[in-house]
């Protein structure tokens, strides 16, 4: 061992540089009954970082609903798993890679995809889809353009090379994310029940085997870096960002699935944040066992690496596994087939300790549990004064609109609302030939080959609502994601969330966090949707402030018969159009208010959880009965934008754009009804002969349903007040981002 490292004196400065507070250091000393050496300090530093240890969030996360009859694996493993029938299960999870992407967009985003994919195939599931949720500052900013392009290319290069289709996502441009972009990646995998495997170590003396890429000095302290605010000095932490090798990961995925399907393993875990440290102590802790490893046996990329560096490296595309007795050679044979490194680096013990040696000499010896049980904090919270200002905003101070056609054109050109074609065309969204609904509709839809089953999936967030009202905003995020699933004809069965916030150590930020968790929990309970896992990303702030509180929700939907899937665009001229839900009429918190009046304020819309739930149920029933030609929810830009999208998004699937003539329901402000964002509204169309049955079904479910017009023509006409060419609207919508990125 390099004696200079072992000799490092543990001064208060060293402790601080490791992101540990003095009382946390005292706690470590108490656990060990002695002072830690520098290697041990490094272990606690990464495992007790917010990124790995959830120390400011765990208490609140425990309040979220995580159970349900379909849940096979809830939070606590690499990914949640739900039963979907016929012996199949779906594994899914979302995770952030915000900090690395802000510093190094291409590698940051690429390794984010790599990390979430490993979480899925580590469970024995074959990844079948990727999704992502991205947030940047205004697209007019050249720096944002560079970040946006780099992130998209990073995601594309990784997913495309792996051969996993990226089938859905969202991109939002808002000033709150100018310095702190958000990159949340979600992955979905399919697994037979009998192949589900967990990240735990058991069986005294079972071999602990390292597989995949070699260990280098990249990404050391990535987890600690991700748990601090971004400052000008952050760019100097570029070495904390890892380098992606999707080809290596593809081999690793195929080898891992082969090992699992051949029943050679007791447990397996990927090396993501906190690398070898995290995989070792978590596997030991979950299995109620201990693990002893020797770092000298770890395949290394560079000479002279210290135990500290080997343990904390976040080199990508590596896994740790525990083989079944007598299977060690078979494991090595599979890895040789895939030309991958494999090394037996240790064995399972019954001591409950994580013991690290270097050439037989002990360099770290700590209780495995103590690393995985970071301190739990209950930070102070206080309501930010700005929230009252938002609530008190007087909508009547904004004059009603007089030029709805022009406003609609402006909204459809707004990069947040406009088509993300520039993005998803860079993603292979068809590989594996399961994609039935490609990007362009409310949810992506996959079939499960060999069955009638299908999966619908979406990822959504509404930071601007949560900034105005964190509780209501969080409810709406869940509702909108579930509504997108319901519009596709599927039943929302489970969700994963990624909670992106500023520093929890600031009471105003923690207030948002607390209220958002309440909102997410209440909505999930109302809709019977369990949360099977997720990720927390805090410290998304910079010297000028924190991001909008941004919970991102990945929602999984299930079809028992995927042939009932519905898409959002109008299908035939002459089809009647209905509005399910009430038109509403307020403009608070709307994209309209932001884009046309430059105001990000007001009361965000109220969501009635019961009415919303009935809407999801009626949509599913209508889809099952094959009443629907199309269904599309009203979200950003409200009723008018939803109608316009129904008219032209068929173009995404090489179908015709169609006009529509509708009347505008309700009374009151014209802009509120056209562009306001009242919740629980869906525009549907059906074959003319189905109209009466559709109305009867809505009545039976207690969902407001009003016939508002019919499909046809080349224009979108709303009452006598607005008439716009569909070709023109489509052109603005599809080319807005392309033109800005050209």
């Amino acid at each position, binding site marked *: 061992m390099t004696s200079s490292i072992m000799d490092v004196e543990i001064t208060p400065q060293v402790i601080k540089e490791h992101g540990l507070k003095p009382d946390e250091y005292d706690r470590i000393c108490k656990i060990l009954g002695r002072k830690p050496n520098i290697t041990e300090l490094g272990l606690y530093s990464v495992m007790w970082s917010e990124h790995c240890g959830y120390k400011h969030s765990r208490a609140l996360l425990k309040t979220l609903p995580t159970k349900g009859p379909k849940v096979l694996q809830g939070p606590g493993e690499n990914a949640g798993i739900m039963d979907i029938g016929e012996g199949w299960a779906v594994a899914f999870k979302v995770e952030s890679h915000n900090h690395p992407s802000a510093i190094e967009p291409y590698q940051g985003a690429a390794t984010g995809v790599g990390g979430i994919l490993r979480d899925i195939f580590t469970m024995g599931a074959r990844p079948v889809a990727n999704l992502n949720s991205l947030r940047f500052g205004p697209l007019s900013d050249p720096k944002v353009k560079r970040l946006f392009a780099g992130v998209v290319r990073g995601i*594309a290069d990784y997913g*495309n090379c792996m051969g996993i289709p990226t089938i859905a996502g969202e991109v939002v441009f808002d000033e709150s994310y100018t310095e702190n972009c958000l990159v949340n990646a979600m992955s979905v995998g399919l697994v037979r029940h009998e192949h589900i495997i967990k990240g735990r170590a058991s069986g005294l003396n079972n071999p602990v085997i390292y597989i995949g890429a070699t260990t280098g000095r990249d990404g050391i302290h990535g987890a600690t870096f991700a748990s601090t605010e971004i400052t000008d000095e952050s760019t100097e932490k570029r070495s904390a960002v890892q380098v992606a090798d999707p*080809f290596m990961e593809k081999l690793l995925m195929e080898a891992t699935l082969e090992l699992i399907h051949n029943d050679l393993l007791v447990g397996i875990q990927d090396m993501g944040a906190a690398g070898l440290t995290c995989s070792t102590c978590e596997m030991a802790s979950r299995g109620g066992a201990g693990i002893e490893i020797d770092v000298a046996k770890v395949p290394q990329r560079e000479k002279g690496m210290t135990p500290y560096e080997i343990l904390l490296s976040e080199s990508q595309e590596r896994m740790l596994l525990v083989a079944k007795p007598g299977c060690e050679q078979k494991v090595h044979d599979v890895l040789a087939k895939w030309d991958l490194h494999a090394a037996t680096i240790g064995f399972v013990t019954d001591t409950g300790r994580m013991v690290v040696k270097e050439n037989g000499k002990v360099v770290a010896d700590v209780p495995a549990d103590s690393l995985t049980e970071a301190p739990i904090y209950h930070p102070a919270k206080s309501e930010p004064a700005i929230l009252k200002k938002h609530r008190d905003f007087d909508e009547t101070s904004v004059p009603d609109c007089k030029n709805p056609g022009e406003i609609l054109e402006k909204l459809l050109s707004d990069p947040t609302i406009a088509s993300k074609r520039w993005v998803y065309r860079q993603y292979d969204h068809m590989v594996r030939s399961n994609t039935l609904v490609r990007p362009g509709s409310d949810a992506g839809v996959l079939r499960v080959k060999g069955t009638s089953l299908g999966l619908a999936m979406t990822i959504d967030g509404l930071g601007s609502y949560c900034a105005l009202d964190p509780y209501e905003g969080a409810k709406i995020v869940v509702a909108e994601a579930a509504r997108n699933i319901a519009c596709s004809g599927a039943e929302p069965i489970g969700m994963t969330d990624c909670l992106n916030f500023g520093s929890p150590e600031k009471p105003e930020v923690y207030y948002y966090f607390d209220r958002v968790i309440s909102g997410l929990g209440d909505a999930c309970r109302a809709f019977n949707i369990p949360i099977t896992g997720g990720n927390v990303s805090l410290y998304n702030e910079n010297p000028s402030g924190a991001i909008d509180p941004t919970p991102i929700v990945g929602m999984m939907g299930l079809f028992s018969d995927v042939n009932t899937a519905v898409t959002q665009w109008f299908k035939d001229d002459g089809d009647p159009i209905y509005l399910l839900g009430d038109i509403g009429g307020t403009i608070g918190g709307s994209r309209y208010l932001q884009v046309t009046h430059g105001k990000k304020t007001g009361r965000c819309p109220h969501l009635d959880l019961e009415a919303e739930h009935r809407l999801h149920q009626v949509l599913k029933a209508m889809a099952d009965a094959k009443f629907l030609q199309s269904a599309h929810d009203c979200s950003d830009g409200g009723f008018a934008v939803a109608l316009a999208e129904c008219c032209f998004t068929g173009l995404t699937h090489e179908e015709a754009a169609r006009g529509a003539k509708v009347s505008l329901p309700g009374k009151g402000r014209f802009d509120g009804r056209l562009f306001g964002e009242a919740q629980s509204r869906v525009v549907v169309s059906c074959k003319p002969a189905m109209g009466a049955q559709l109305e009867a079904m809505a009545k039976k479910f207690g969902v407001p349903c009003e016939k508002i017009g019919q499909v046809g023509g080349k224009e979108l006409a709303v009452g006598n007040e607005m008439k716009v060419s569909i070709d023109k609207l489509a052109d603005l919508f599809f080319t807005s981002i392309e033109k800005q990125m050209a």
Partner: protein
Amino acid sequence: MRFSVTVFPGSNCDHDCEYVIRDVMGQKVEMVWHKETDLRNPDCVVVPGGFSYGDYLRTGAIARFSPVMKSVADFAAKGGLVVGICNGFQILCEAGMLPGVLIRNKSLQFICKNVYIKVEQTDTPFTNACKPGQVLKIPIAHGEGNYFIDAEGLKKLKDNRQIVVRYCDPEGQVTPESNPNGSLDAIAGVCNEKRNVFGLMPHPDRSGEDVLGSHDGQVIWKSILAAKAGVA
């Protein structure tokens, strides 16, 4: 009919090929690992898409040295049918089994979307079931599908009628807008002089069923079946 699909490290459309051949077209299919040399007596070899060797060095440049490629070349030399799709096309070009090269898309971006291609030659074992000039809707998904060949090579391709499919619009017009990647002469796929080796960038493996947006890719597989039956 018996198909063999080669599998390189990094292949990722091997599943799609296996599925469409076996489950959609109802034919026998064997997956042949790149380290093997026995092709298992196929009637047709499919070199699938993906990122063999991660596209490192250059697309297809390393895969062509895999042991299986010697067998594929021998099989083709004896008149066996070989079709390369996407990365498979790139590999066949790198291996010298097809003329030309595939360079970065003109946009410098990866492009995934449905495109239209026009069948220019129907007297090949891969297009004999098509009508002359038939337009097929088939997806592309590639970053390096920009076909290039020198003037002499292009003349040879034309003289020998080796340009099998070209990018076009839905009506079959070859226009600059309908060329997705900047390919010379809108070339989407070519065959060798003996017409038994065919490579194309679009994916007939992903367009075998209406639920996927198009079944037009089936006609390529049907042509191969017809060729085996002795029609072509």
